């Protein structure tokens, strides 16, 4: 946790350099904010230093695995959705997510994936007229 707060302070200092332009100009406000942020972060670190005897583990065992997996699937979805098109990507997304992360039984997975993809398509594309990427299916 302390490491993280340190990270914040560093972030604040980066802003310090990006924000410095002349007075009430575009840089003024961010500059001010960055200084304030740095101060607050320091205060926070200080506060914790005084208190914490036993730092709690940030992540228990491998509990970061599942969130990471989720993130990866999400990113993959974003990358592929334009090329594969909405219907296919969404279907795959649901499939892989439920299989990989949640380990549900196949029947449920398939049913939910199909149903959800269809419903979402109906709601967004047809009903609300939101353009969704067509990808391969456009031809």
């Amino acid at each position, binding site marked *: 946790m302390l490491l*993280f707060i340190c990270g914040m302070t560093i972030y604040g200092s980066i802003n310090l350099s990006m924000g410095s332009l002349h007075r009430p100009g*575009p840089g003024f*406000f961010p500059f001010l904010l960055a200084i304030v942020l740095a101060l*607050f972060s320091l205060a*926070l670190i200080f*506060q914790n230093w005084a208190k914490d005897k036993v730092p709690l583990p940030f992540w*228990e065992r491998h509990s970061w695995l599942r969130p990471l997996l989720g993130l990866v699937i999400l990113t993959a979805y*974003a990358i592929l959705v334009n090329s594969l098109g909405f219907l296919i990507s969404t279907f795959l997304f649901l499939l892989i997510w439920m299989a990989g*992360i949640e380990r549900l039984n196949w029947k449920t997975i398939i049913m939910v994936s199909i149903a959800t993809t269809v419903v979402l398509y109906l709601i967004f594309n047809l009903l609300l007229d939101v353009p969704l990427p067509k990808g391969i299916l456009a031809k």
Partner: protein
Amino acid sequence: MSEFLDLFQGLISGFGIAFSPVNILFALIGALLGTMVGVLPGLGPAATISLLLPISFKIGSPVTSIIMMAGIFYGAMYGGSTTSILVNIPGEAASVVTCIDGYQMALKGRAGPALGIAAIGSFIAGTIGVIGLTFVAPPLAEFALKFGPPEYFALTLFGLLMATLIGEGSILKGLIMVVLGLLLGAVGLDPISGAIRFTWGLFMLQEGIDFVTLAMGMFGIGEILINLEKKLSTELVSRKITNVFPTLKDWADSKWPIMRGSFIGFIIGILPGGGAVISSLVSYAVEKKLSKTPEQFGKGAIQGVAGPESANNSAASASFIPLLTLGIPGNAAIAMIFAALLIQGVQPGPFLITERPDLFWGVVASMYIGNVMLLILNLPLVGMWVQLLRVPYAILAPIIVLFCCIGVYSIRNTVFDIYVMGVFGVIGYLFRKVDLQPGPLILAFVLGRIMEPALRQSLLMSAGSPWIFFQRPISGTLMTFLILFILFQIVRMAWKSRRNKGGDI
């Protein structure tokens, strides 16, 4: 007295118009659409109305189209609270505050009462708003005109202060989040100087980060990522879901918050730009201060839902006032309605009431009707929504993620925004791990984008002198109030920490 009679006459004729089958139908369509849109993250009332603009002139009559659009608008306000309560994702900026206690209530199995009170409160507030619209519209609109940059600055500063106070947990952490939120708000083209800030050359960021992307990321994805850590194969709500409707006690607790919320929302809602957000914030803070059990706030106090939800609904009604009386659109959605009217040959402005009383009164009357309709629609739906929470989280989670993705995508039709959302998701996730609440950040983000330009505009107006904030009556009052408030808080804090040494600030 005769003016009063005129008003009544107008209103009655308005009801006559509003009750026509066509108009009722379109009011219903609008309300339905609006609720759906409000529930679905991403698509906001503004975007929806703009999509429907072409249809609006196929409808033919401007009265009917504006009735439909108004329905969409406050339907969205109703719907926005649904996701806030159920999955801690704000449907739009005004619903952020509802997340705080609403979601907690849901986790305790009290999603039903939360949703119910939100619906009822919204109805009452919306109706009060419309009543206000009927009777005091013109003079209040003039008042709204007096709000210039200094006033906006004072107001948003006030709102910002509220935002720090509402987070549970240490004030210091709340402050940090606020500052971060303000910084995030600075990303993009600076309207005052034309300079481009913090975009690292990415053209896509030039308009700044969109609220929805930020909200979906921090609230939605962040929440899901955190939950993924635990192997939740069961439902989100571990406790048994208690009654679906608010109890009598709930009702008693919420009576006054609803009333207060309605008034707060109405007054702040008239102000162009950001009325609903600020009013929900103020309402929450007021309720917390006035409550006999302030510790409950943040853990599922129903007043924390009743007040803000009422506030944002009456603010929605109030935001029609500048449009109908002065011809000035107060926010993006109203601006669409403005455009739709223009295309149909109607000019919104001071003469609207006299030139087209059928339009004015027809819309006002249909707003009453619309509110009733929404209530009737939504109450039964509460039961359905609650059932949704029964779905195993394992299935719910990816679906929620998908909703967020699509919602975010629909803003600008680019996948880029999904990436941005992902980034914020990770950030939100990390923040939660260190006990930093995203609420104040996102509120600061919204308010900051109003506050900073307002500050600089004010200084430009005063040629650099900071005294402008005190020279003008309205901002002067607000600023004085603000300063007193801060002093008060500091004194209180100093006193408290003197009493229990060594506690967290």
